[in-house]
């Protein structure tokens, strides 16, 4: 009997993309479990292959995006989560989840601050896959589109040169093809050195099916193809997780 890999989605008060993210994970083959943060224990991630922090506004994000969620997560399972990563576990943060991961120090140094537009921006963007070896991006083409929806997605580093280094050393796994929100080096997503921790501002779970694209005649993908680009991010992850386990 083939056992399906398990994914846990952490839900903070204000997390609101957990259902559709779970749906995307289930579609590619994961078994998912949503755990409200109040019920989270160190043993909650025992035997799990993937921990996901999905989008939303954890605790309202009034202090700074992801700040309170970081404090709670660190206190509850901080050490466990680092051990989990060191022992081959995968961690994915989408939008608010990316913001939380940067605060937790699980990704290379950087902060996600207010967009240069000063606005919330809900739109589709073009992205460049700069890490085709990444377990999260291996099945995605060189360039593709995902929607974004955030007010604080501008990635900044303490020195501009650090962001430049991210481009050079591969940490900047995903970049926008044009300036969307003022991110240094147009960075849309970061990975850690292991490649198993990945955070991105765009929402792959909103482009699961081809039909999710705003243009019904979208020319990407194969003719008659059912899936959108987001599917392939989750599918990449599934392949990576299951090949590790073989």
């Amino acid at each position, binding site marked *: 009997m083939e056992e399906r890999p398990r994914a846990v989605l952490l839900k903070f008060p204000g997390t609101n993309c957990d259902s559709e993210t779970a749906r995307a994970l289930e579609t590619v083959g994961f078994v998912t479990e949503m755990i*409200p943060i*109040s019920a989270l224990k160190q043993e909650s991630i025992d035997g799990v292959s993937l921990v996901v922090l999905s989008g939303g506004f954890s605790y*309202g994000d009034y202090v700074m995006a992801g700040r309170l969620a970081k404090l709670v997560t660190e206190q509850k399972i901080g050490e466990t989560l680092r051990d989990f990563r060191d022992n081959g576990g995968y961690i994915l943060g989408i939008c608010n989840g990316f913001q939380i991961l940067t605060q937790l120090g699980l990704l290379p140094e950087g902060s996600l601050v207010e967009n240069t537009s000063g606005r919330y921006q*809900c739109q589709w963007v073009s992205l460049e896959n700069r890490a085709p070896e990444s377990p999260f991006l291996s099945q995605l083409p060189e360039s593709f589109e995902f929607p974004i*929806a955030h007010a604080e997605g501008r990635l900044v580093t303490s020195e501009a040169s650090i962001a430049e280094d991210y481009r050079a050393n591969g940490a900047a796994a995903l970049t926008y093809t044009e300036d969307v929100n003022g991110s240094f080096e147009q960075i849309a997503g970061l990975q850690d050195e292991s490649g198993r921790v990945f955070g991105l501002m765009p*929402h792959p779970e909103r482009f699961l099916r081809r039909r999710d694209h705003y*243009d*019904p005649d979208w020319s990407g993908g194969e003719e008659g193809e059912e899936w959108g680009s987001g599917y392939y991010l989750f599918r990449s992850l599934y392949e990576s997780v299951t090949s590790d386990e073989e």
Partner: protein
Amino acid sequence: MSTDNETILDSIAEAPADHYRILKISDLDGDKLHELSQFMKLSLSKEDMLAIQEIYNDWDREPTDVELEVIAQTWSEHCKHRIFGANIDHEVDGEKESVTSLFKTYIHDVSQRIFDSKPGFVLSAFHDNAGFIKLDEDQAICLKAETHNHPSAIEPYAGANTGLGGVIRDILGAGKGAKPIGSLDVFCFGAPDTSMDNIKADDVLHPLGIMRGVVRGVRDYGNRMGIPTISGAIQFDDAYIYNPLVYCGTAGVIPIKDIDKEVRAGMKVIAVGGRTGRDGLHGATFSSAALDTDSHEEDQQAVQIGNPIEEKKAADFVLAARDRGLIEFITDCGAGGFSSAAGEMLEECGGVINLDNITLKEGGMVSWEIFISESQERMVLAVKPESMVELQELADLYETEMIELGEADGSGILKVTHHGETVCQLDCSKLHDAPVREMTSRWEKKTKEVDPPVLMDAGETLKAILGDFAIVSREPIIREYDHEVQGNTVLKPLAGASGDAPQDATVLRIDGSDRLMAMGLSILPEWGKTDPYAMGTACVDECIRQLVAAGSDPDRIAILDNFCMGNPDAEEELGALVETVKGIAEAAEAYGAPFVSGKDSFYNYFETDDGPVSIPVTILVSGMGIIDDAEHVVGASLRRSDSLLAIIGTTGTKLGGSVLARQLEINNAEVPATDLEVALESYRKYHEAVKQGLILSAHDVSEGGLAVTLAEAAFSGKAGLEIDLCSLPMDDDASKAAMLFGESPSRLVVEVAPGNLEKLADLFEGLPFACLGRAAAEHSNLRIEWGKEILIDEPLDELKAIWKNGLAQYY
């Protein structure tokens, strides 16, 4: 006798304890009673107060302050819709007629006839927080819209924020708890470029300030709740400078088995969510009166503060509890607070509410304040006693506060206790017997035949119209709303090759169903200024047309009516309302599209330095449609460069209500009527064409007329257009102005592959239909000809820039 320092309230009050008072009203005359009502901000008329006095005389006792507040909430226009229930002597063009309840005659009875003719379609209407229609065998969908006008005028951000928060709670409180899946927002503001000199009263906020505040209020609530805001509209008109209108609506989905709910004796009444404070006192009664400059100073406490995360936690709790079968009854705490929620819940059964159990935001609150506070983010539930432990575990899991308010006891009496004393004891059946109002209204025809304008340069006219605030792109606002959260927004509010072209209806996929839900709306206040009846029919038509265009089955559409008006005691204003209601009723009945929910907002007028200013009677018709198959979803954007364009519907001569007429200052021109029979027949044929896969795209012809529709469709960036109006189906003498910019209803421009034109034309045999031209791969202009004469030949990128930047520069 009252002295100078003693208030009317002090002079009649007796305080058995610090937290409540007994008010001796039995000896007061009508004027004194009315003075008391005004002092306590009860918004009850002299007649109402006399009726209350009589009830208490019968009971042979005096009311407590809590009881008077409860009755004021229950009888407020906001909660009881007394104008829609009034007896009205109406006169139209000299003909007298009497209306016994607008609601019963034109909304309820019309809808009931449609329910009867379509058994099994409408599953619940009028009595719950929102009406449900059947989606498939297992699930139902609902839609509810409300206004939050007065709060938004005074504090735009908080007013709009809580406006959306409130309607989301309506959905959570519909059935045993529906899941909110999409929202709409419709605003009416003064023009963004209004000069400060034209604002004739102190402390009135500039329309730009109101618009920015309102948009951010909607944004921050909807986005944080994770509910996509997918549909909307904005009207700009000087008439809304003092009284902006803010409509918020939300759709929901529920398992059919969870629609019916009932409170029975022995059940526990609990509340979850936020705590209770002094914010939001008298919201229901405040919104049942006119605004003036003092409102901006005095009524701040009527505007609540929103906390979307508190509501998100409560929503997670409610949906989880419903799925576990732990909810027997649920409703939201809206206008009137616990008094309305508990009153509604215990109306028949009766029960006891203990105010001591309510967790408060601040100390020192007296009984009536606790009971009627409209603090946000609270839901009230009736549950079985044995479910309490599991519910408390769920509340802990989702970090929301749960309190036990009391219990249902089967007595038929609403009893409220506080600090060991009974502060309110009312027979619930008496609570809902407000005196019926007697009113008078009249309407006289305002329109006349006018000569059509001669267009010197139709291209320039088109540019002026595309740059009009009525037409310009709403993109800067749409992008501030997360319209894709939940991952189900199939037809988005923006479309086209670059994702910035306009859409008509929007469409949501529904989890667990093969069917989809379309959401559409229409608001045409300019029409109603001179012909409210025609506004009514046209709004229903446009809403239904949008839904059908997107792929909905025309025979399974349900709609909502949301009215706003100025002073109902002004006969002509009330007359316009009556005519509007008759118009929507006529169209709803003809289309077989029942009303399943509605709301009204009165007293949208303002005492300016130059006298009172009222808004025009404004109706928002919104609706939900069912799309049977994802393959039937049709967008409004041109898709190909080798396709043909055809029009469905007749172009008439009348220009009243149009953007063109407003720009050219053509006043009182006749407003187009709607041929409901031909329209419905056409929509059915169109739907047949959709099912056969013949339609590539379809855009409704509405504000701005045909030329604007064509331009907007081509803003998708796929191709230019070559159009000839020679074959346009029209009334014989339609002018070029009417052909290009007239706004006759019931028209759709459809895109069809060349090989499918004949099939499509065959379907429309005997109906107004014609092929107008083609998409042009060889250029990117909008070219419209009339035989040999070129009427418009403009580069689409120039037109699009005008349209796209019109609002962006102000927002």
